[in-house]
């Protein structure tokens, strides 16, 4: 019952030379020598102008008037922009945003006006001189209040908004999208279940905190070509959205060029289009001059995408033998003021909110709710990090209630190849059981540990995770490959090197097929004029999707190489193979033709003429088995996801029972990479993702005051981990159950490594203290107060 994949990929995984091996990253020297150029490092000469943005101080208000006269008269100011200059909507999956606010502001920080000046200082100074009069309205800050009867509408015109066909906005409500799954009969299953547990879990908003802030430089030149240098995960999607949003100004796609050098971390925060549209639009007002717009750290927090908060109402039914029979998961997403990207997070979560379990009866409701908080959007894990907290907490509680070991319980119910998914398609090959067993073994599951320190106790926890790439069904990747005179290779793709090692992995895939060593392959960062299409570097899909495109280009190049050998020497193509940068022949052991001798110049025939010529190739990949169209009331009938990556996380932690302080002594994480093209880089994703996930549960959260203003938009008060705030020991475990349509069997792992981190801490804290914390984060303070509360209750009972 598994998916049939209607195309051919390199299936042979025997005797791999490069794939599956560690390879030195091809961007190492650049980055460690200080040479690596990020957008803000590019020089634009003395003509560079600087932009600063005027932002709303109110979460919800009507704009009564904007007086820009003082700013226009200020020193150094070249131009002031407001919503009147760009009355255009845009959006990734739903067009609900404006470039600058029109009539209303809907979150604190929303852009109201912009100043372009000759210096950054002049721009910031002049921005403070713009006077905006507001009529302040009552903001909606809580998603469940926003869906209550009679709630004010954040977007009264929702019914007019253009959106993708798999969204279901509810007119005259604040529900921008409602993903429903109905499978089996949950009501009956709960009635028949031996045990049913129902509870609510709270997950706040989070910030990506890439260390590089968003920055963009845009220039409309005298030939009306708009070039945008941008710190982005999504050069082609940005070009598309710029071209569409600015189409009224006469732009077509060919007039817009997006160039993306190295990016200083993304984590979803630099996907899609956020502040970049401001720079692109403002540049059209000052033809010929490049305009730089760089977000401050504060803006980075409150005016880019944020990970959405969610309130999860969860009900699960189980039989006494541990068989899961029903899941009802209602997710109220605080999606913020604009949901053009965030609604798809909601959609993805709704499709998969059972977690990695075999569940016959399912009712999922995932509600994308407008609030007057900053726009929600993609963040590593894309909805799954959020709902796994409650789900995997709940699974531990159910196992305990029926007297079953939580690891045995998970093993029994874990989804495996061929099991039916919530929307009716079937699960891909998966190493979940192996991941559970190896993770449990790594933390000595079942072996009770006690602390020598009388002030501390030790706890263990385990949680599973799964995630599928959340993409349009036809999201695609492409690559160009060309040989150089010396047999070295240049590859262009449009996936982004965000730090994950994408460029190196693409080089390894091409190297494996063409036998050219990785250090002779250059893979370029994108320029939409030159590099072929890539949808976006998100969804943990580029190793798989872009990897397939590179693999196909390499196979095509190899075919062309064999063709010219065949033409000149007469060997049949299927007798030829590549080895050590040369063409060899199975039927003539003496034959060896080094690539460098002919991949540009061709081969001279006996008559003195030439054959062949520059070897160039292309490859593209688009999944052809996916389909996002399903019944809106049941979610049945489509095939929205390409495949799931699964795994397990386990921790051993120690807690000071007076102070609540938690030390993660050991953390193990097993992820099924299908095939690790570069095991070192997979380990890097495990370590980095795990620490990022642990931070969401131990240290971080976004706080908003009663007026919707973010209270901690700095690293002083939004605490991302330092070198001290990591587990004492991290055990990365790579499981490899090949993905049938993956390049050499690979599937993505980038996001997955942070998904299990939050619930695993909740479970281990419970294991240590007997205290179940149902809201994130589980800070030292929260644990200390819970311990105090428990001791009061216990004393009271005595």
């Amino acid at each position, binding site marked *: 019952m598994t998916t049939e994949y209607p195309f051919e990929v390199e299936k042979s995984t025997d005797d791999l030379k490069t794939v599956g091996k560690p390879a030195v990253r091809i961007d190492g020297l650049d980055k460690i020598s200080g040479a690596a150029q990020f957008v803000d490092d590019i020089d634009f000469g003395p003509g560079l102008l600087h932009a600063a943005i005027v932002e709303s101080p109110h979460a919800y208000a009507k704009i009564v008037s904007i007086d820009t006269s003082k700013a226009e008269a200020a020193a150094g100011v070249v131009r002031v922009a407001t919503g009147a200059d760009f009355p255009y909507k845009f959006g990734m999956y739903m067009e609900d945003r404006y470039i600058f606010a029109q009539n209303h502001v809907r979150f604190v920080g929303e852009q109201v006006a912009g100043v372009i000046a000759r210096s*950054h*200082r002049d721009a*910031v*100074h002049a921005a*403070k001189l713009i006077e905006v009069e507001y009529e302040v309205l009552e903001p909606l800050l809580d998603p469940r209040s926003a869906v209550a009867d009679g709630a004010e509408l954040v977007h009264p015109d929702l019914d007019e908004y253009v959106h993708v066909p798999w969204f279901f906005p509810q007119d005259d409500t604040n529900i921008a999208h409602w993903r429903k799954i109905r499978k089996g009969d949950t009501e009956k299953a709960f009635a028949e279940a031996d045990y049913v547990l129902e509870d609510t879990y709270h997950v706040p908003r989070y910030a990506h905190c890439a260390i590089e802030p968003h920055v963009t430089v845009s220039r409309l030149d005298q030939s009306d070509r708009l070039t945008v240098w941008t710190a982005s995960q999504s050069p082609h999607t940005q070009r598309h959205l710029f071209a569409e949003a600015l189409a009224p100004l006469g732009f077509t796609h060919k007039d817009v060029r997006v160039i993306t050098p190295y990016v200083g971390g993304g984590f979803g925060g630099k996907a899609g289009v956020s502040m970049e549209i401001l720079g692109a639009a403002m540049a059209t007002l000052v033809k010929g001059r490049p305009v730089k717009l760089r977000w*401050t750290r*504060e803006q980075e927090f409150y005016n880019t995408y944020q990970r959405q908060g969610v309130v999860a109402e969860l009900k699960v039914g189980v039989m006494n033998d541990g068989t899961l029979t029903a899941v009802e998961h209602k997710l109220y997403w605080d999606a913020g003021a604009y949901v053009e990207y965030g609604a798809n997070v909601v959609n993805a979560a709704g499709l998969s909110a059972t977690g990695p379990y075999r569940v016959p009866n399912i009712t999922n409701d995932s509600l994308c709710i407008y609030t007057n908080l900053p726009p929600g959007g993609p963040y590593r894990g894309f909805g799954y990090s959020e709902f796994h907290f409650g789900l995997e907490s709940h699974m531990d509680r159910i196992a305990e209630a029926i007297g079953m070991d939580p690891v045995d319980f998970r093993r029994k119910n874990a989804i495996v190849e061929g099991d039916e998914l919530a929307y009716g398609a079937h699960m891909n090959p998966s190493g979940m059981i192996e991941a559970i067993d190896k993770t449990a073994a790594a933390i000595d599951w079942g072996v009770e540990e006690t602390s020598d320190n009388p002030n501390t106790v030790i706890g263990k926890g385990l949680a599973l995770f799964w995630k599928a790439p959340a993409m349009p069904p036809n999201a695609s990747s492409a690559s160009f490959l060309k040989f150089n005179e010396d047999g070295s290779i240049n590859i262009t793709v449009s996936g982004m090197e965000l730090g994950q090692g994408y460029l190196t992995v693409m080089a390894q895939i091409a190297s494996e097929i063409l036998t050219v060593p990785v250090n002779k392959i250059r893979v370029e960062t994108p320029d939409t004029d030159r590099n072929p299409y890539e949808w976006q570097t998100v969804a943990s899909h580029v190793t798989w999707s872009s990897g397939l495109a590179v693999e196909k280009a390499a196979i095509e190049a190899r075919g062309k190489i064999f063709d010219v050998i065949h033409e000149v020497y007469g060997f049949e193509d299927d007798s030829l193979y590549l080895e050590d940068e040369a063409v060899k022949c199975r039927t003539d052991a003496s034959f060896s033709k080094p690539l460098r001798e002919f991949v540009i110049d061709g081969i001279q025939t006996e008559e003195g003429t030439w054959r062949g010529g520059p070897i160039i190739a292309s490859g593209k990949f688009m999944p052809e088995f996916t389909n996002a169209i399903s019944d809106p009331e049941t979610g049945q009938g489509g095939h929205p996801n390409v495949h799931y990556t699964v795994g397990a996380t386990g921790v051993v932690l120690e807690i*000071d029972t*007076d*102070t609540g*302080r938690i030390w993660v002594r050991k953390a193990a994480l097993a992820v099924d990479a299908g095939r690790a093209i570069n095991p070192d880089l997979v380990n890097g994703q495990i370590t980095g993702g795990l620490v990022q996930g642990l931070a969401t549960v*131990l*240290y971080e959260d976004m*706080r908003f005051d009663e007026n919707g203003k973010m*209270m*901690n938009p700095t690293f*002083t*008060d939004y*605490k991302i*981990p*330092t*070198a*001290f*705030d990591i587990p004492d020991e991290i055990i990365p475990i790579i499981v490899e159950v090949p993905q049938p349509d993956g390049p050499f069997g690979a599937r993505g792992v980038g996001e997955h490594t942070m998904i299990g981190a939050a619930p695993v801490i909740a479970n281990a804290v419970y294991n240590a203290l007997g205290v179940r914390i149902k809201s994130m984060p589980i*800070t*030292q*303070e929260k644990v*200390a*107060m819970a311990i*105090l509360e428990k001791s009061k209750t216990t004393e009271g009972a005595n």
Partner: protein
Amino acid sequence: MVIARNFEYQRPDTLEEAIGILSDHTGSAQILAGGTDLVAWMRDDAIAPDLVVDIKNVPGLNDLTMDGDTLHIGSLVTFTDIIESEIVNEHAPLLAEMADTVASGGIRNRATVVGNICSAVPSCDAGPVLLVYDTVVHLIGPDGARSVDIKDWFVGLRETALSEDEIVSHLTIDLGSHGGVYVKLMRYGGEDLAQASVGILAYPDNEYRIAFGAVAPTPIRSARIEDTLRGKSLDGDLIAEAVAMVRDEISPITDMRASAEYRNHMTEVMLGRGLVAATERLAGKGPDYGTRLV
């Protein structure tokens, strides 16, 4: 964000010159030493001086010396200087323990101890420690030198006894045999502002000095708890008695960094653990300086 306004900058070569400049610009000048607070605050528009007076060229302000039992800390002495000073590590290791908790190396290389108590935020790490050391703050102004006891230094939230035309020249601390501890509550292991802090000194004759940070508008000494402990040898009951007094001594608020209730609870825990550690250290035992107690 860029500092969005202009200001003047002067770098006097003598103390007299510096005081002259300050006197001529009362109310519109700010002293620049390490600058780690000043530059950040100017960027935030939290302060907007017309003139910044960089005192780093003034000779003599870098001194970190012992004269008899008296430790002299010049106003340009950085937290790194404190951590690396043999004198401090030998005679006043508590100062180094405190300095080690301040921000990060790149900040400590610039930020000064005196600047920390001039900024005078409630969570300033130097506050509780200088309080228990009965530090004397030495000032120089147009009318000459004067000194202020540290207990009179912190006047209110981010307010000190320093006049606008004065400069702190140095601090002095009379040191005797003591055991000390600085317990700092942070949100995690890495750099953080104190959510609450406790500074304790234990002297041989069962004399204790106790101060708290980040649990009142200024760092505070606790005479009542000190009186309760005075002359008695420390045991579990006495510690419990002292701990039970904490909530009456401090007045924490709930803010972004912690709730009042958590600050109360943790200050109790920190005082209890700190008293034990300080007493043990006095006896040459106990946890190494730098060991985190919470």
